């Protein structure tokens, strides 16, 4: 049993300070920059109101916040077509190890290859590479099993490598995921079971 928290406000302030930058980057990678701070505020308010549910481990708490943010973004995307199927931005926290000038060409290739990926591929790679989540945490954010996440990650890496070696491939056309009824009832008319 975890020890009781004697000062929830202090603990919350510590969590906020430790995770604010990561959460803001998580959101900025996935939505319009102008909306990012609103989403972050929404997520931290949820965390305050449900503080008893937030894991004590900093790593797990961070993953918990990402999961709340992911769902908050998805809810917004459902009601705002402009936000649907946005490509993910590749942003990161500052790195003291500066990238050498002679790597600029490689960076350009990578950025081009990234644009060829589907949003779903960008999503799994971002959760792993930038958000540094383990398989279980990333699977929980997406609401899929760990196995499913592993398969998606493997295929995303494979496709990114392929695009890196074939720069001539045109970027895909991202279609919006618009919730709508399935009009072709003929396809779903007979869903009978046989045992």
């Amino acid at each position, binding site marked *: *049993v*975890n*020890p*009781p928290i004697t000062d929830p*406000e202090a603990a*919350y*302030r510590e969590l*906020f*300070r430790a995770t*604010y*930058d990561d959460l*803001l980057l998580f959101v900025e990678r996935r939505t319009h920059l102008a909306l990012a*701070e609103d989403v*972050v505020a929404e997520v*931290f*308010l*949820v965390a*305050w*109101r449900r503080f*008893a*549910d937030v894991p004590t481990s900093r790593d*797990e708490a961070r993953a*918990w916040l990402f999961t*709340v943010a992911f769902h908050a973004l998805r809810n917004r995307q*459902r009601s705002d077509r402009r936000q649907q*199927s946005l490509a993910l*931005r*590749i*942003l*990161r926290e*500052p*790195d003291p190890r500066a990238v050498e000038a002679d790597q600029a060409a*490689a960076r350009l290739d*990578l*950025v081009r290859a990234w644009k060829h990926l589907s949003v779903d591929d960008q999503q799994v790679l971002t959760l792993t*590479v*930038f958000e540094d989540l383990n398989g279980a945490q990333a699977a*929980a954010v997406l*609401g*899929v*099993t760990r*196995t*499913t996440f592993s398969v998606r990650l493997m295929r995303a*890496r494979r496709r*990114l*490598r392929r695009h890196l070696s074939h720069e001539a491939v045109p970027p895909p056309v991202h279609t*919006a*995921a618009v919730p*709508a*009824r*399935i*009009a072709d009832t003929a*396809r779903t*008319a*007979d*869903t*009978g*079971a*046989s*045992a």
Partner: protein
Amino acid sequence: MNSHHDLDQAIRAAAKPVPSRVGRLPAQALLDQIVSSDPAPSGSRRPAYRVPAATRLILAAAMTAVCATVVSVTLPATMTGGESVAWASWTPTPSPLSATDATAVVDACLADTSYTPAEARAGQVVGEQRGDYAYLSVVTSAWTLSCFRDQDGRVRHVSEMVEPVSAAALGGHGVELTGWSQFRAGEGSVRLMAGRLGADVTAVEITVRGTGTRTVHATVRDGMFLAWYPEADASINRTLVTLHLRDGSTVDDLAAGDLHDAPALGD
């Protein structure tokens, strides 16, 4: 760039660095505003203590939709006991899912994914009902998607797989497991299976060996199959798949976990 590590490093190196902002005024104002607000505005103030680790594990498993209000936690039933209450209406043999229900489930499920109705219309749907629960799979040439409707009517997409094996590769008695997920439903954990079958497969039986043995009959239609069962503890269960072929013979005891890793291709 042969290893995952190298590729991940290359992605990071290509990213645009963004400076820290937690120390800036907007962040500090937000923090002060939040901690000065009522943490339980609905009137049901939560205790300011941490829940025990074991309980938190269950909460974490239920966090596929964190925005939903979690009022209580149902403890997982065991394979031999407890299900009589938690899964009272579940049946080992499925019944058909009506076209209306299937359409409604697909509708709700797509809203939870990046797939479009147009893409789904190009595929096929196979569904089943076991008591109060509905389960179906949408299969296209490019992807498969499985969706579960819980007792409370909530629909969630529970698994998906891209680039399924071709029908030609499955041959007469091949089988590919496109869905093999453990999922936390309202009454506890369930194991959901979905797959594609060779042309000569007419029926599929699932045998679950744990503290007891249970046989689950799958829905089979148009080269696809579906089945699911309550599964409290996956670590003690061994799930085997038996294929019944058109000529009356069977392909016995295929381990489901192995099939998910690599399909069994037929002649």
